[in-house]
């Protein structure tokens, strides 16, 4: 083709044969398409790498290694343990005492050593105590417990700790691994899905096995309720007024510019504002999801106002004109015709705003929701809003800062849970848009 065309005399140029300039333009287009594909491929690669890393680091958090043992607690032992100051330690000792008898019964021959067993177990005292306090009838009865192993033992199964690099310390000795292997071979030590991670609460820094994201997820939920019920009505009312009723003058221009500016204000600024207004001035409690929700409402409002105004604008003027033409008042035209048509856009904007607020940590730092907070489930709606709690991103941040590597895994596991929440919210936004969307 090219050879032919080059020999062709200029005067007989055919449309079917590309000349030099056309070829150049076509080549430019091809190059541009190639750049586009490369850009998407790079983006896709990043996404893949990110997903791979998150899953690789986070999935182990959903597996738990437990020791299964039958324990019979006598009334005397219960009373003795309850009379101590550090009751949980007493329960741990009772459990370790039962260990030996149990092993002999099962015919497991391991070099028994109470200190070693204590090193292998996680913080089990609290679990045992809370079980017996709730089930007083089980005192004197044999009860089968599945109790967590220590973070070093979990690390051994999950590949963080191995026999070559282990350094003997008071946390774990190299020789303890022989006991671990023997327990696993005999079935005393098994793995299971870690429901405690999903339903659990935060734990002390020496107890990574007991940490869960549940309580802080509830904190996030209550914050999102506050954000939803405050920012949606306020945001929608403000945008309807600005878009449909407000006169166009310098004042409304100023308001508009400031709303756009607010949308770009770093979130930590809202945290400082929240601290001085809600906690120091209004005397609301520290670390409360209510305050967190109020702060995040301030942050979300501009986003909601901007998206609501955009969707109100996209309703064709003919709808308004038709409504006004048959005698509807301005307010009737807005509430009966424009607003319902703009609703899918408003809902999408709101859900995106909420998803943004859900992942926010910075403002929570200043109102006391980051730290060792999420230790209890709220026992009611008022307590849910007012009692100290954390939020999922704040919990992840806290875990990532702890010395024990076990918490690092928990942080990644928390990220997976948070991402699932975000995916669900975004999926809901897409669903609502598809379901109610109108085209003109």
């Amino acid at each position, binding site marked *: 083709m090219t050879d032919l065309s080059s020999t062709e005399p200029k005067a007989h140029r055919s449309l079917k044969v590309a000349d030099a300039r056309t070829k150049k333009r076509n080549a430019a287009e091809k190059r541009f398409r190639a750049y586009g594909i490369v850009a998407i491929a790079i983006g896709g690669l990043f996404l893949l790498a990110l997903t791979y890393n998150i899953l690789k680091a986070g999935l182990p958090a959903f597996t738990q290694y437990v020791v299964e043992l039958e324990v019979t607690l006598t009334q005397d032992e219960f009373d003795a343990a309850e009379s101590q*100051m*550090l009751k949980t*330690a007493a329960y741990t000792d009772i459990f370790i005492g039962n260990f030996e008898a149990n092993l002999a019964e099962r015919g497991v021959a391991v070099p028994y050593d109470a200190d070693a067993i204590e090193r292998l177990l996680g913080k089990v005292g609290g679990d045992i105590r809370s079980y017996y306090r709730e089930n007083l009838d089980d005192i004197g009865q044999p009860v089968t417990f599945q109790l967590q192993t220590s973070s070093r033992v979990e690390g051994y199964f999950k590949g963080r700790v191995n026999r070559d690099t282990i350094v003997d310390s008071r946390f774990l000795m190299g020789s303890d691994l022989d006991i671990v292997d023997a327990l696993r071979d005999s079935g005393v030590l098994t793995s299971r899905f870690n429901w405690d991670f999903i339903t659990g609460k935060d734990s002390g820094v020496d107890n990574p096995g007991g940490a869960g994201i549940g309580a802080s997820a509830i904190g996030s939920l209550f914050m999102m309720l506050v954000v939803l019920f405050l920012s*949606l009505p306020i945001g929608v009312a403000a945008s309807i007024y600005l878009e449909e009723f407000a006169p166009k003058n310098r004042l409304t221009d100023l308001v508009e510019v400031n709303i756009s500016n607010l949308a770009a204000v770093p979130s930590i600024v809202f945290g400082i504002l929240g601290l001085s207004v809600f906690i120091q001035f*209004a*005397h609301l409690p*520290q670390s409360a999801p209510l305050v967190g929700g109020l702060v995040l409402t301030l942050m979300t409002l501009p986003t909601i106002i901007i998206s609501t105004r955009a969707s109100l604008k996209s309703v064709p003027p003919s709808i308004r004109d038709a409504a006004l033409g048959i005698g509807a008042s301005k307010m009737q035209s807005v509430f009966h015709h424009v607003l319902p048509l703009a609703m899918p856009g408003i809902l999408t904007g709101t859900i995106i705003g909420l998803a943004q607020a859900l992942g926010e940590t910075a403002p929570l730092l200043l109102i006391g929701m980051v*730290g060792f*907070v999420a230790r209890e489930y709220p026992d009611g709606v008022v307590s849910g809003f007012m009692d100290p709690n954390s939020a999922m991103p704040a919990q992840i941040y806290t875990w990532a800062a702890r010395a024990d590597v076990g918490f690092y895994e928990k942080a990644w596991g928390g990220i997976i849970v948070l991402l699932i929440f975000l995916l669900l919210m975004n999926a809901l936004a897409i669903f609502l848009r598809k379901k109610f969307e109108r085209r003109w």
Partner: protein
Amino acid sequence: MSFLKLTASTLAVAAVSATSAAARDNVQIAGSSTVLPYASIVAEAFGDNFDFPTPVVESGGSSAGLKRFCEGVGENTIDIANSSRPIRQSDIDLCLENGVTDIIEVRIGYDGIVFASQIDGPDYSAFEPADIFNALGATVLVDGEVVANPHTQWADFNADLPAEDIVAFIPGTKHGTREVFEDKVLMVGCETTGAFDAMIASGMSEDDAEDACIEVRGNGITVDIDGDYTETLARIEANPNGIGVFGLAFYENNTDTLQVATMSGVTPETATIASGEYPVSRPLFFFIKQAHIGVIPGVKEFAQFFIADEVAGPSGPLAQYGLVSDPELAATQAAVEAEETLEIQ
């Protein structure tokens, strides 16, 4: 219309819940990130062992914590401030200004500060305070002259150390650890190398010379870490030449990735710190607002539980995590029992 109703009812709910926001029933604690791990262990055990709600423990650094502690008396201020340094006159002044007059000081134990680096990095295994000062001080003594620090590699001033570029990750100024680092390492190094005397001889006042001694080079050679030790660890992992300043407990939790250096020939461990042989250690404290005892439930019980033999003693969970327990714990227990406050003016 439904939006108006919704808004009205939401505001009503918010108002009702705001008025019910009386009486806080949990203890609020903030302060040193070095004390935070211990405080969180005690807080969890306190929640597990007593019928009080689990206290809330926040981080932020000793100075930030004491500042919040001194904001005033009342439910919306914290009850206890954790600190890795003693309280200063400037803190006390702020407290007095805001009506916080009765402060109970509680020493919970000791913490060692260790110098550690990547386990498979260069052989940083033994330091003297003089080495750290020569490497990190802004002005040092070279051939009898006080000059701006010219050293780029450790071997430049001590042939026993590796010929590697000097990089150190040290705690930022808002951390209590920084003060110990300055007093027990830089200042000591300044004196033993003779830089301090040379500065005095050159006509500087003693205060100015002390300030000059503890000034670090910055410029990427010393990097202030304002966050937690995990941030220091991340920097060390990214930088094989770097040495980092850690708390003993943090190092002991990460022995598989960090190698520790001896200081003046002494290995940092619980025994050498308790005996005072290891030179770089400091006491850890928390401070209680006496006005909150009896108002906020559980404040005194929490403090007593914190320093009980079963918790802060040599075989308790805190020592297990890495705290060097205080041999004079009994005196502290008695002081808390009697609510002895600091004498301040």
